[in-house]
């Protein structure tokens, strides 16, 4: 018996020594498996998460949503707002040694605009041509003044890939991407891991604290957290609000939280086909009654332990363009009932469609219960994701819980959902006056004037309520105390410059 005990003790000693990994490797747990690792093709949040280490962009956003330099050191708008000239950082090379210069920028923008399956076309649409003025000067000529361009360039549209690798590998680039970020691609095992190693030639290499970073795909948030607690991962992204207490109580962990850009909203079909022909689809007053029937704070408390941000606008309060004059109305069931009665109804039927994820399902049930008290008979219609997306895109819903990842600038969000031709305007809301305001706002370089324009936009969309914004999710990372230097930015991406092992 004693021998067995000794043998077991020896086994587990070896076991635990084997499980602790090299200190210079950062192991990160991701909720989803990233899609194609090519900034022109990528469409997932987790893809962007990996790109943050792999591919530098022309500009970046700061924690307070200001545009800051990255590969471009500075920029200057032309007086008419129809062109912008960037001064590029010198001595930057891609991971294959190709120098980064104005020609590379020209190549990248043209590549993203012309690749047939590029997902960046809309973001770069206002750019008509790119001129390489000097090795470190590049000018973008625009078809119209377009201030949100910088914000677009702070995401995948501004990521630079090696022109040499992109030309040589064409179709297989996504399998082995070559960029100019702090870490370079080593290997990818699909639905398992992505391994990157420090790029010694990085322009800011002194700020890079780990030799290697490995992203592991761990879909279940409880398991992801367990693995950080077990010391098997150093960091896990998107910790569920219900698990935050565990993180806070664990002396080995640190919770990193930050305000997000995303918004979840209840979208009503007001003009797309037969499903728009409902009391709520036709009557804005009933939608206002619906808003009064629900309490956003209750949704936040019950579904997300109060860890998210209950709010009534598409733009999060962290944005300088948030309109603090439009406060969310308090719940008022009596008033809601009165409004329903004024519309000549007693009970209002409604079908609510949503993706059958844990979060959305809870939100839908809470809404059903609260709205029911005011007189809305909400029928729940949960859908599996791919089906939900298809029905959503085809306007095949009465009401839908939409989750939008948000953007650094208000323009892409508001145009997508509220302009008549917006890419997300699947509920077919159209208001010509609003379109005019949105166009003015995107051409306005003066921030104060722009803010005033967006306040007017907010006034209009909150009056019509083709969509009722519900809450903004916050970002939560659980990291071991041994990881130092994490800075949360509203886009929720882990930037590795400055992140290093503690001590």
């Amino acid at each position: 018996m004693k021998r067995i005990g000794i043998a077991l003790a020896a086994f587990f000693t070896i076991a635990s020594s084997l499980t602790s990994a090299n200190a210079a490797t950062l192991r990160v747990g991701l909720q989803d498996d990233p899609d194609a690792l090519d900034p022109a093709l990528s469409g997932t949040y987790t893809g962007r998460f990996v790109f943050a280490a792999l591919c530098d962009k022309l500009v970046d956003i700061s924690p307070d949503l200001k545009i800051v330099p990255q590969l471009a050191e500075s920029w200057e708008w032309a007086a008419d707002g129809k062109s912008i000239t960037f001064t590029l950082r010198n001595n930057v090379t891609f991971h294959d040694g190709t120098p980064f210069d104005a020609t590379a920028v020209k190549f990248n923008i043209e590549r993203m605009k012309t690749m047939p399956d590029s997902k960046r076309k809309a973001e770069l649409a206002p750019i008509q041509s790119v001129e390489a003025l000097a090795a470190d000067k590049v000018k973008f000529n625009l078809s119209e003044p377009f201030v949100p361009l910088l914000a677009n360039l702070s995401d995948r549209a501004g990521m630079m890939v090696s022109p040499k690798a992109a030309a040589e590998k064409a179709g297989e680039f996504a399998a082995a991407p070559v960029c100019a970020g702090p870490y370079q691609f080593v290997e990818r095992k699909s639905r398992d891991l992505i391994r990157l190693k420090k790029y010694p030639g990085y322009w800011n290499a002194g700020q890079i604290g780990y030799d290697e970073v490995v992203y592991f795909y761990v879909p279940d948030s409880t398991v992801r957290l367990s693995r950080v607690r077990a010391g098997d991962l150093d960091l896990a992204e998107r910790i569920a609000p219900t698990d935050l207490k565990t993180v806070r109580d664990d002396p080995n962990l640190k919770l990193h939280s930050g305000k997000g850009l995303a918004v979840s909203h209840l979208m009503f079909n007001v003009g797309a086909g037969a499903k728009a022909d409902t009391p709520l689809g036709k009557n804005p007053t009933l939608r206002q009654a619906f808003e009064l029937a629900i309490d956003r704070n209750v949704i936040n408390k019950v579904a997300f332990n109060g860890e998210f941000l209950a709010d009534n606008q598409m733009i999060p309060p962290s944005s300088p363009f948030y309109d603090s004059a439009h406060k969310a109305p308090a719940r008022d069931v009596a008033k809601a009932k009165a409004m329903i009665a004024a519309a000549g109804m007693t009970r209002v039927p409604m079908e609510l469609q949503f993706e059958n994820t844990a979060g959305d399902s809870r939100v839908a049930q809470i809404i059903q219960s609260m709205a029911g008290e005011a007189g809305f008979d909400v029928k729940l219609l949960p859908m599996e994701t791919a089906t939900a997306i298809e029905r959503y895109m085809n306007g095949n819903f009465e009401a839908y819980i939409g989750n939008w990842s948000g953007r650094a600038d208000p323009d892409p969000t508001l145009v997508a959902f509220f302009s008549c031709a917006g890419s997300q305007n699947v509920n077919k809301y159209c208001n010509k006056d609003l379109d005019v305001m949105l166009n003015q706002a995107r051409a306005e370089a003066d921030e104060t004037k722009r803010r005033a324009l967006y306040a007017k936009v907010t006034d209009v969309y909150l009056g019509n309520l083709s969509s009722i914004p519900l809450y903004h999710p916050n970002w939560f990372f659980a990291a071991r105390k041994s990881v130092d230097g994490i800075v949360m930015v509203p886009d929720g991406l882990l930037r590795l410059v400055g992140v290093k092992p503690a001590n």
Partner: protein
Amino acid sequence: MKTLLLRRLAVSLPTLLLVSMMVFGLQKLLPGDPALALAGEEHNPEVVEYLRQKYRFNDPIPVQYAFWLKSVIQGDFGTSVRTRLPIGKMLVEKLPVTIELATLSMLVALVIGLPIGIFAALWRGTPLDYGASMFGLAGLSIPHFWLGIMLILLFSVNLGWLPAGGFVPPSESVGRNLLTMLMPALVLGTGTAAIMMRHVRSAMIQAMKQDYVRTARAKGVREGTIVLRHALPNALIPVVTLGTLQFGELLAGAVLTEQVFSIPGFGKMVVDGVFSRDYAVVQAVVLCTAAIFLLMSLIADLAYAALNPRLRS
């Protein structure tokens, strides 16, 4: 024996083809447009249309199937629509992982299921037998997902003895490979062990009632010899069949275990493939799994014939 082998092989190929056709047709019945699922948040119509054409989503299903079959016969499983990675490479990466997990689980099942089944049969009606039945019931009814998380909490989070998940290929470190596989194999193996135990128990009870056992006893053969030499080999015949088929089940049914322990095997690959409408991936995995299943049932038949002389003629 040879005729049996040839006959079975002749049946297997058309079966495989039929399976692939059914899966191809069925997944096309799934609602949800893969091009829309792929196009990203902004859904540029131009891009959606390009993707539809590029991946032949607009073609009639038989045409799509023919193109797929043609390239598979040429050894090309295509690229994943979502990640743009070659599917052939994915299969080569995932297959050994899944086979290792299934083999280790089977080992766990045998080590637990066989002895308990035998003892339960020999001491039928005693507390030991009831204990075994309870184990069987628990093994069958405890969800893998729950058991996995409990084991992770105990052995990884609280005790810190074992890694909580992930996969280390044996080529990198055999020790760490086995450590990471220990809990998943245990979780996946308990269910199979329970099934195994129940079959061994009833087969053993049957065998112990046979005439040859009575004759052996009459001749004064020792009880241990009767059990091991006379009853057990006969009781094992159905168990061998069960084991090989169960192995196929393990390959196909490891989805939740792979999910909990983040093991990059077939189960996870096919589930993710279905959710992202990555048809070519689903198709390749199902075809591979079907092939393994057919192979396993072939082995089961051959083993059955080898163990039971009456079937050899």
